[in-house]
């Protein structure tokens, strides 16, 4: 009660609404992985206490400005310690939010909350690309609408204007969102500078660097999505069949260092600028698809078998002669690449011949060489010998958690005959080299899962894989010795739910984050073709609506064939029989029509009055006609 006495009820209402505006901004920023939860949790806690205690729980303006200044100094320190400017700025805004949540309930406080809430929303637009961002954004707009209504009422003499019911906002909100969607689509896109593009935390990976320790790579069933691949065009069925079970090549590792692998320095490197087209083969590609690559801590681009070209690359790239494609630096955000591929396997033809490191059998452990010789047996051709080795390896047990000796991992793998793909690939490479066949390990991804709801492929971290490339008959050929049981493992907990959620996310990336002028043009063309297809129906519907509106406006009434003004019909019949009924003259007062018996006429009048004024069912024109025929 003390609160109500101290503060007008209107202020309490505005107080909650502006708090909601601010919290919408805080929620949007809470979606960002760059923002420390400590900042926004503090704001939310203070907001809860403020809602509970009301404006009595407050600090003076001076005290809150002191908190603001302290936040400023703190953020300055953060910058000195190397925190990114945008992140430091949002930290400052969150500290400021903490202050103004508990600031004294003065008019300025309302304005502070709305402005800071707005800047938080803008900050989140740079620091997150989550699909959930749409929720705080929509709630922000709605609460700004209501809070402004409330504050507007207070600003002018009509200070006691009540707020309209929230249901009345539904229509206007729907209109606003539709209009926002239209503006979003119609406005032109420019791309002068990518500094303010949404960023995402780089995914931590292992196995995609110039030097890899054996045993670190691809050991967990991490369901985090790495790539999303959707068809460009309408041929979904063909796309699914052709993309199924593809290898996504990342980095090739050639130098064995005893407990791991090392990349060989590239001899010939070609550089490609942003927006250019990278062409890898002369064959005409026949499958077009878009790949969404999540931000990760390495610069490698994963390309599927038979990659023909990448059109309009989103960032500068370089391609080495060993087949690794990488960005000049690891991108800080998700990138969309449109690729075209030819038949499976065609993409390996352009790779250079083996270098010395891929041939040398010096570092091959003795146990591996002995094992290889034993398994290969008396086969003559390299391909057949490697085939036997691979068949042997495929019969072993796949185990993600197998323990191994860190000094001699391959030897311990040979003893245990269990391990994960990295051991299988490494063993085969070393065995091949011991048999005199150049070989190397390739790290990348294999397969993926088809999302039926959205019609696209997902490649997750759990699909990370090592395989082998062997130089046979003048070209690199792929060998994969990993047992097939590997691909029955999955870390996805709720597959059905996950499928829908991933579809929503890809739609968000595709139609919001990656929306471009070309998409608008495409949408426009689709709209035109739709118009052409259904032109007749559209014209008919529009004509019908226009005619309906015209008739409604002109108060046109359709002729009443079955009911309605029966007097006109009756009067016409009476006139033919020499009776001219005056307007509003009851039927019982008109004279007897010619040729009609009096008794019959009286019965007719009685029936007429029963239906007209009594409880009998109303006559239709057909009923009247029937009665009149009976009279005649």
């Amino acid at each position, binding site marked *: 009660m003390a609160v109500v006495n101290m503060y007008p009820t209107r202020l309490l209402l505005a107080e909650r609404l502006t708090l909601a505006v601010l919290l919408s901004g805080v929620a949007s920023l809470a979606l960002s992985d760059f923002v420390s939860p400590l900042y926004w949790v503090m704001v939310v806690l203070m907001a809860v206490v403020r809602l509970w205690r009301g404006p009595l729980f407050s600090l003076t303006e001076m005290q809150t400005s002191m908190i603001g200044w302290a936040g400023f100094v703190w953020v300055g320190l953060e910058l000195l310690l190397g925190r990114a400017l945008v992140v430091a700025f949002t930290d400052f805004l969150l500290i400021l939010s903490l202050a103004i949540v508990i600031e004294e309930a003065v008019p300025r406080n309302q304005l502070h909350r709305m402005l800071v809430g707005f800047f938080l929303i803008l900050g989140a*637009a740079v620091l997150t690309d989550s699909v959930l961002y749409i929720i705080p954004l929509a709630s922000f707009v709605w609460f700004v609408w209501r809070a402004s209504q409330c504050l507007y009422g207070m600003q002018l003499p009509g200070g006691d204007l009540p707020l309209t019911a929230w249901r009345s906002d539904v229509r206007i909100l729907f209109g606003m969102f539709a209009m926002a969607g239209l503006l979003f689509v119609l406005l032109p896109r420019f791309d002068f500078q990518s500094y303010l593009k949404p960023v995402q935390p780089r995914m931590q990976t292992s196995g995609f660097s110039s030097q890899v320790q054996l045993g670190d790579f691809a050991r967990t069933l991490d369901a985090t999505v790495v790539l999303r691949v959707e068809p460009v065009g309408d041929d979904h069925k063909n796309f699914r069949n052709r993309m199924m079970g593809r290898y996504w090549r990342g980095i090739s590792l050639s130098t064995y260092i005893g407990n791991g692998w090392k990349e060989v320095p590239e001899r010939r490197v070609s550089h490609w600028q942003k927006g250019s087209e990278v062409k890898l083969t002369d064959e005409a590609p026949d499958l077009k698809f878009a790949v969404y690559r999540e931000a990760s801590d390495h610069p490698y681009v994963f390309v599927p078998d038979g990659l023909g070209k990448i059109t309009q690359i989103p960032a500068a790239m370089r391609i080495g002669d060993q087949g690794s494609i990488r960005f000049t630096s690891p991108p800080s955000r998700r990138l969309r690449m449109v690729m075209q591929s030819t038949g499976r396997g065609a993409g390996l033809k352009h790779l250079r011949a083996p270098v010395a490191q891929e041939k040398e059998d010096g570092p091959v452990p003795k146990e591996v060489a002995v094992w290889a010789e034993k398994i290969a047996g008396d086969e003559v051709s390299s391909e057949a010998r490697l085939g036997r080795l691979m068949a042997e390896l495929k019969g072993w047990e796949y185990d993600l958690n197998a323990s191994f000796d860190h000094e001699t991992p391959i030897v311990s793998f040979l003893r245990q005959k269990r391990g994960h793909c990295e051991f299988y690939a490494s063993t085969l490479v070393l065995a091949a080299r011991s048999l005199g066949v150049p070989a190397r390990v390739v790290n990348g991804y294999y397969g993926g899962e088809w999302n039926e709801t959205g019609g696209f492929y997902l490649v997750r971290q759990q699909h990370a894989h090592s395989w082998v490339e062997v130089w046979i008959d003048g070209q690199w050929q792929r060998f994969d010795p990993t047992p097939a049981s590997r691909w029955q493992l999955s870390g996805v907990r709720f597959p059905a739910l996950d499928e829908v959620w991933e579809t929503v996310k890809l739609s968000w990336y595709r139609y919001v984050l990656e929306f471009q002028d070309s998409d608008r043009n495409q949408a426009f063309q689709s709209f035109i073709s739709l118009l052409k297809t259904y032109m007749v129906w559209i014209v008919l519907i529009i004509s019908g609506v226009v005619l309906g509106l015209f008739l409604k406006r002109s108060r046109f009434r359709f002729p009443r064939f079955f009911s309605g003004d029966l007097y006109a019909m009756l009067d016409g019949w009476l006139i033919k029989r020499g009776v001219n009924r005056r307007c509003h003259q009851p039927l019982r007062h008109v004279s007897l029509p010619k040729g009609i018996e009096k008794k019959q006429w009286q019965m007719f009048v009685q029936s007429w009055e029963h239906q007209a004024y009594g409880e009998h069912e109303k006559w239709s024109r057909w009923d009247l006609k029937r009665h009149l025929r009976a009279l005649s």
Partner: protein
Amino acid sequence: MTLAYDPADLRLPSGLLRLLDVLVRLRISVSPAWQLGMTRPGVMLLAVLVGVWLAAFYSGNNLLYLCGAMLMSLAIASVWQAVRLLKSIPFLAVNFPEYTQAEEAFVLRKMLPVASLSIGLVDVIWHADAVDVQLQLRLDKSALLTGRVLAGQRGVFKLRKQTLATSAPLGLWQLSYTRDEALDWVVLPRPVLWQASMSGNVAERQVFEGDELRDLRGYMPGDPISRIHWRKAASDSARWSVKRFEAHENEIETMKLRIDLRVPGMTGETAGAKSFEYLLSQAWYWVEGHLKKDKSAVEVVLGHQQFELSQPEQKQACIKALAMAMPQQTAPVGQGGILLSLVND
């Protein structure tokens, strides 16, 4: 405690506030009927929108595009809501008083049968040649029309254009809509209590010397003190009322007032004009006293015009003629009744 959210609360530099005021005064003619301006918060929102769009165009960040589109749609929706709000206001002529009296404020307070689209205040300005009428419409669950209607002089003012202005619903834009709504605003002279000789003041005798209380009217200098409604005056000392009584049926006779519109010697000069106005004030005092009488046949002769007050059309015409009366050269038509004249024949 004011609960405004004016940017001035942010303690902006005075130069910036002056710039805001300049922008707030700007009005953009969208069409001949519609004008759009901004409030201070509206200017701020516009500045913010420009900033967001520049950032969006510069970076190509589609989330900034989305933010900009959302805010822009909020601004457009508020304009659209204001347009609908103004268009939904019915014609107000029917709520305007039948007549007012010069130098006397008429306080208008009327509920309108409008289904309000939004909360808000609408300023209604009705333009006439000489004077504007300013009203206010308060819209929430119902619509309340309030205002103070005051004219300095008698006459019939042609109200033609009506401007409706509002900053509802968000207080961002000042939208005004000018529409045609014609109305004759009849302003009558302030009534003057007159002491007629002859049979005394017949009208006054009727209303003050009857048996039954008829109604109350505002006190005017010269009213008998015994007729002041003291109990009412105790509750509202600012407005004294005077009791008026109904005369006996048999005392009611055909009443006739003849007003001679001739002004001796000159027409239109100051002294003559004052006398003429005084004459009309007396005439209006008499007519007003009889307006609510349905039983008696009251006849008013105004120069060469004759009116029967029991007839509604003639009553209207009489009121209008009184408001518009100009000096004439000829004597009033007819004979008998009470004659009000400045001319000694």
